[in-house]
């Protein structure tokens, strides 16, 4: 059972939450794992928080809904407020500290606060903070290898957006190594 990763990624619409989730899912698929990806949907998306549930597992996946994530990526304060308490003890919480004006309160989890947006701005594109966080996520959890993640990225970023691809990879590496 321990080889099942249940990741919740949450933030505002427009922060690339859904894309980040898709990327990890895709990488999981390439790695030969069972995967599922489930977005929150409906009016709560407007103005409020958007989130997605990603499961990467060695076993067949039952419900794609995650009640207690093994890892949480929170990209705004409402998301952290909403999901902090749901993370399993010993789980991981990754926050974008450029956007969240408080710290993680839980003491029984691994809390990592990264100024991801700031890093991303420094590297040239603030909107790719999501990739910074994904890079860090896979380092912390080992869901997939960095190589597979990059491979997945290549598959889902259209060839004509080569530039974007490279930028994304840079961000991931920053997160992974930083």
């Amino acid at each position, binding site marked *: 059972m321990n080889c099942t990763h249940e990741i919740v990624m949450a933030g505002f*619409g427009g922060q690339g939450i859904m894309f980040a989730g898709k990327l990890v899912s895709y990488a999981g698929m390439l790695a030969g794992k069972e995967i599922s990806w489930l977005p929150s949907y409906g*009016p709560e998306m*407007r*103005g*409020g928080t958007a989130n997605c549930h990603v499961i990467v597992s060695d076993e067949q996946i039952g419900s794609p809904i995650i009640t207690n994530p093994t890892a949480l990526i929170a990209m705004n304060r409402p998301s952290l407020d909403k999901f902090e308490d749901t993370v399993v003890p010993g789980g991981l919480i990754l926050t974008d500290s450029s956007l969240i004006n408080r710290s993680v309160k839980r003491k029984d989890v691994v809390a990592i606060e990264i100024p991801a947006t700031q890093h991303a701005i420094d590297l040239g594109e603030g909107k790719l903070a999501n990739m910074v966080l994904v890079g860090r996520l896979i380092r912390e959890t080992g869901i997939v290898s960095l190589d597979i993640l990059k491979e997945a990225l290549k598959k889902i970023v259209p060839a004509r957006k080569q530039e974007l691809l490279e930028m994304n990879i840079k961000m991931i590496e920053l997160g992974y190594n930083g």
Partner: protein
Amino acid sequence: MTKVFEKPKALCDVPLHYCPGCTHGIIHRLVAEAIDELDILGKTVGVASVGCSVFSYNYFECDMQQAAHGRAPAVATGIKRVHPGNVVFTYQGDGDLAAIGTAEMVHAAARGEKITVIFVNNAIYGMTGGQMAPTTLLGQVTQTSPYGRNAENQGYPIKVCEMLSTLEGSAYIARVSVDSVKNIRNAKKAIKKAFETQIEGKGFSLVEVLSTCPTNWGLSPVESLDWLRANMMPFYPLGIYKEK
């Protein structure tokens, strides 16, 4: 010092759920102001429709009903026939009113049903994530007109005021906008006039309000007002289309 501007009493003191800069909020406030000014809160019953404004039942301080998609005019008719002394209004989007609700709208107007319709035209289905509406402009890209609305396959946008004005039962029909202070003032006047038309028993009244959907238009709120002015207003001319 006196308050020259504050929240109208007919509007509940709760945050609105609309996206940043969505003009649904302005229109809500104008309706509430009109109710305040006419001092009719206690006898007003509103009908929320299905669309982004579905939660409007949480925002008006009067009795409210939530109607099935497109059927607000029928629901309002039911209410008004039971309590003819009430002031009954519907608040409907363009998908709700001009697509699925076309028959209910046309017939409420034809019957001269003494209700007031606040028709919020943002040229898109907001709530469901930006699909083409009957009011979507030619060439406009939406989730279901990804190559731009094309008249040949997807038909022409419907001009609701123009159509309803042909019906004998409609007593007051106007199109307004909330893109500027001036137009907001006119919009308020029209809304008030529509309620008065109902109260005086003259027949059916409708105010079409051109509105924005920054989220699904993919524009900032400020750009959205520009887009409204540049694209919607020329196609949907403002004005009073009928007055009895």
